[in-house]
């Protein structure tokens, strides 16, 4: 009975991060025990301000830390019940976990279409299947189809974000780790991109772990949220609940009953919070 419960639980939870610590360059302790889980078919948001450790968490999962002299020194990461901390990014992509990096990182001198095809690098299921998925990506991002022959380096920020997401889709992922898609984009473009993320989630069944500073937008599209502050999860809950939480409202959504508080209050709030936790 217990075994059965465990397997059904493993089917529900795709990604499980337990209490990880990450150190850069052997000295800088950046994550101080982060735990989170990403359920199949969900959009999970990872929120927090500059330097909170969102990107580091995503890179710890996708193994991109290795190439940045970062190291997981404690804790464990499992994907569908299997430990994945020692794998390299290429093995993870084959398992269905792919990261879309902060700042897009399109291949500047490759055309948009070549960028998308590069996303299919790890696949071995033939040209026909890849061509079908290319069409699928163009269905979701018609703009990319118009720009398919342009060098990605010369496309706009929004197009590059679409290109980066499309490129990840070409690997046929089950889980996309999406880092700060809203960065530097105009509000209606942000809505458009999040709209597509939602559609991909609902229609293609792709699960998302979404790192965002833009709490407002992220909590409208996500199902569940974690709030990270200097390397620790300080709060988590269903997105609807977080949206209504007075602290979140005040410090992340920029609203409060008695109007905006001064910066000093925010600082002391944080200090208090740290002492408490």
């Amino acid at each position, binding site marked *: 009975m217990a075994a059965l419960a465990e397997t059904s639980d493993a089917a529900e939870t795709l990604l499980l991060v337990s209490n990880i610590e990450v150190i850069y360059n052997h000295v800088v302790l950046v994550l101080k025990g982060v735990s989170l889980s990403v359920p199949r078919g969900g959009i999970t948001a990872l929120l927090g301000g500059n330097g909170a450790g969102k990107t580091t968490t995503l890179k710890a999962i996708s193994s991109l830390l290795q190439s940045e002299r970062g190291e997981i020194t404690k804790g464990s990461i499992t994907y569908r019940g299997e430990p994945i901390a020692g794998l390299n990014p290429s093995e993870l992509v084959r398992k269905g976990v792919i990261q879309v*990096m902060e700042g897009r990182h399109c291949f500047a001198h490759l055309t948009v279409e070549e960028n998308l095809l590069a996303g299919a690098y790890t696949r071995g299921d033939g040209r026909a299947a890849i061509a079908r998925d290319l069409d699928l990506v163009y269905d979701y991002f018609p703009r990319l189809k118009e720009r398919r022959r342009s060098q990605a380096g010369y496309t706009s920020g929004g197009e590059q974000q679409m290109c980066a997401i499309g490129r990840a889709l070409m690997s046929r992922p089950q889980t996309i780790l999406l880092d700060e898609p809203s960065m530097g984009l105009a509000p209606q473009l942000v809505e458009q991109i999040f709209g597509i993320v939602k559609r991909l989630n609902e229609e293609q069944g792709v699960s998302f772990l979404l790192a965002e500073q833009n709490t407002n937008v992220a909590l409208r599209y996500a199902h569940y949220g974690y709030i990270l502050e200097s390397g620790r999860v300080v709060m988590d809950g269903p997105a609807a609940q977080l949206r209504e939480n007075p602290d979140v409202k005040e410090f992340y959504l920029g609203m409060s009953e008695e109007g905006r508080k001064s910066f000093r209050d925010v600082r002391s709030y944080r200090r208090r919070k740290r002492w408490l936790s």
Partner: protein
Amino acid sequence: MMASLSRLRLASPEGVGLLLLAAYAAYGLFWLGSIDERDRLFFYEVTLSGLLAGVMYSLVALGFVLIFKSSGIFNFSQGVMALFAGLFLTGFMNDFGVPAFLAIPLTVAVMVAVAFAVERFVLRHLVNQEPIILFMATIGLAFVLEGVGDILWGSDVKPLDVGLPRGASDFLLDGYGLYVEKLEIAAAAVAAVLVVALSLFSQYTRIGRALRAVADDHQAALSVGISLRTIWVIVWSIAGAVALVAGIMWGSKSGVQFSLALIALKALPVLILGGFTSIPGAILGGLIIGVGEKWAEIYLGEVMNALFGLNASWFTAIENWFAYVLALAFLLVRPQGLFGEKIIERV
């Protein structure tokens, strides 16, 4: 937009360079019309032999560019790799009597093994290090390859004959009165085929696309599951094969000898001219240096004497240092090289 406009302005250093070049070409054509038949044929021969020597520089520079683009490593050992490949090839053929059609694939296998070893024992441990450290590592590699080659095959000059045609081309000699070695024409043809094959490979295959992706953005390439280690092995293997071709060409002409490693030094000015990241640049740069140094060797002394009354004997060995002077001048005018990849600034 503004940048491309200003690039065309004649007052810019590049504009001045272009004007000078045009004037020089016009003067050259005028001069060519004014000399008699025999001198003109001699000029063609000088030019052709320069072009063909340039092909060799191009091949070495090509290996440099491939490795530099995919890993940001300035591979000092590229010239030694040509020597190393040449030594193994002559070793297989002369010491063990292996026929050329077997010895060449065998040597390619050796170069692939070198690529694996370099990745396993050098690159893997030095990822994320400063470029200068990687550069130093390739200097070390050059010494190791040279030493291993010396220990295994000895340091005497070895003749190499893989069955390439020899002697003067009858067609050019009878038809046009030009004396050109068949070997050099074959070298040029092989180099051309190699370049076309390489660009088709990098343009239209999955691995080729991955090579270009890695050249653009290591991190992003990693993130989509491209294994840098695999790519490095592939690139070093290709560079090894290109080195083998250079080794065969050079060795067929003047025997496989340790001075072969010195052509690597000529590749540096070629790269400055052509740009470190451009394959067409490497080819064109090689040809320009090849022709330029031959012209300088034959004509510059006379010209300087006639124009400025300088002692013509000052310019006798200019072939040896012309390339460096040209590269230096070029650095002042266009530091990114003729075809240095435009850095796309926007993110």
